[in-house]
């Protein structure tokens, strides 16, 4: 059988079919796009309805606020991303966290004289609530963490350290390494730490423990006590619960 090159007609047919596929394809894409747009619109409406309906709950109830945050996070929406978005308008949540942020900064500054710029999240919560007055809504630990996350935009002034099952909020520049937070954790458990205690419980070299303790004293976070026995002990005001309601 002799092979013949494809005829003109066949090529034309093929081109035609390709063009048709292409048309169909874009048609499909367009309809999908329109559908998507509709879905998005619907979603947005529903979310708006939801937000409007539960506005009070979101504002008042820290538990609910946390769940709403989580829901938004799972679908990739950040209600705090912009203070001008409809979220802020709908909920005032944007404002809520910004306001909270300012109060956090205030409390941290005011208490830094006592604690050297390191405050436990519980103390922070107590003081922020006190400064907001008695009738304002409750603030949860999660609200504070959310707000502090937003404060990071302003630079590295604020960081959160997990110590044991609690958090310490650091409002002074200076890197706390893992060693330092481990020391703080030990101090939280026992009220204070000693060099030999660190060597024993953490299996540290003497120089490692000494370096960590000296750093914490140098950064004004740690105080030394020479009357607790044979060995100097180290104490941290940030870890002592502060029940005073005044800022300073």
């Amino acid at each position, binding site marked *: 059988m002799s092979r013949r090159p494809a005829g003109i007609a066949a090529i034309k047919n093929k081109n035609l079919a390709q063009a048709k596929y292409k048309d169909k394809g874009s048609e499909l894409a367009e309809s999908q796009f329109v559908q998507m747009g509709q879905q998005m619109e619907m979603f947005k409406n529903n979310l708006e309805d939801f937000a409007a309906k539960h506005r009070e709950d979101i504002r008042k109830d820290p538990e609910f606020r946390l769940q709403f945050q989580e829901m938004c996070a799972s679908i990739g929406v950040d209600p705090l991303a912009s203070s001008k978005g409809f979220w802020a308008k709908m909920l005032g949540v944007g404002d809520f966290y910004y306001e909270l942020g300012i109060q956090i900064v205030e409390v941290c500054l005011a208490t830094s004289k*006592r604690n050297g710029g390191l405050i436990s999240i519980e103390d922070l919560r107590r003081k922020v609530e006190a400064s907001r007055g008695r009738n304002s809504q409750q603030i949860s630990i999660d609200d504070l963490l959310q707000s502090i996350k937003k404060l990071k935009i302003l630079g590295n002034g604020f960081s959160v350290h997990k110590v044991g099952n609690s958090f310490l909020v650091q409002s002074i520049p200076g890197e706390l390494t893992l060693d330092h937070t481990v020391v703080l954790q030990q101090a939280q458990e026992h009220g204070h730490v000693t060099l030999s205690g660190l060597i024993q419980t953490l299996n540290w070299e003497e120089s490692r423990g000494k370096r960590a303790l000296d750093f914490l*004293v140098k950064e*004004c976070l740690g*105080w*030394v006590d020479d*009357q*607790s026995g044979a060995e100097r*002990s180290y104490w941290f005001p940030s870890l002592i619960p*502060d029940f*005073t309601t005044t800022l300073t």
Partner: protein
Amino acid sequence: MVDFDWPWQYKFPPFFTIQPNIETFKKQLEAWCSLVLDYQRHIKQYTLDVTEAQNSELFYNKQLNRRLSLEAIYVVLDELKRRGNLEWKDKSKKSCTLIWRTPAEWGKIIYNWICSRAMNNTVCTLFELSDGEDSEGQEFHGLDKEILIRALKSLESEGKAEFMVFDGSEGVKFF
């Protein structure tokens, strides 16, 4: 008497050890200075005997078993002296007068009280002022005589009072 409201530092053991970090030490010294003045005001004492004070609850927290060393007490008292809140009574620095209110401030308080009772142009004895029944409940009731005299002298320099001595006792006339 109402219980003295101890600051948080008083229950913080390292407060009784001079801090090696200079920044922390400054905060510590500041806290000690206000504690000494607040405490003295609370117990209405103007004189502080260093040896006695060493074992008083001010510098010795029995519950914590922590005390401020003599050396550290002098650091605090010298700082108070520098701030004008303290005067040594003797060269050997064994006792001192704490001035938690300046004589002029005391004078003003006394003068206001005199005016409120319309006792201008009358003569009172110092005893009446500091220990009389009328002045009971007033802040200057029980005021140290030395400070009282200084307060009145400061009023005198303002032309609001005249300090006088008659028959060995001292009195004052307010204008």
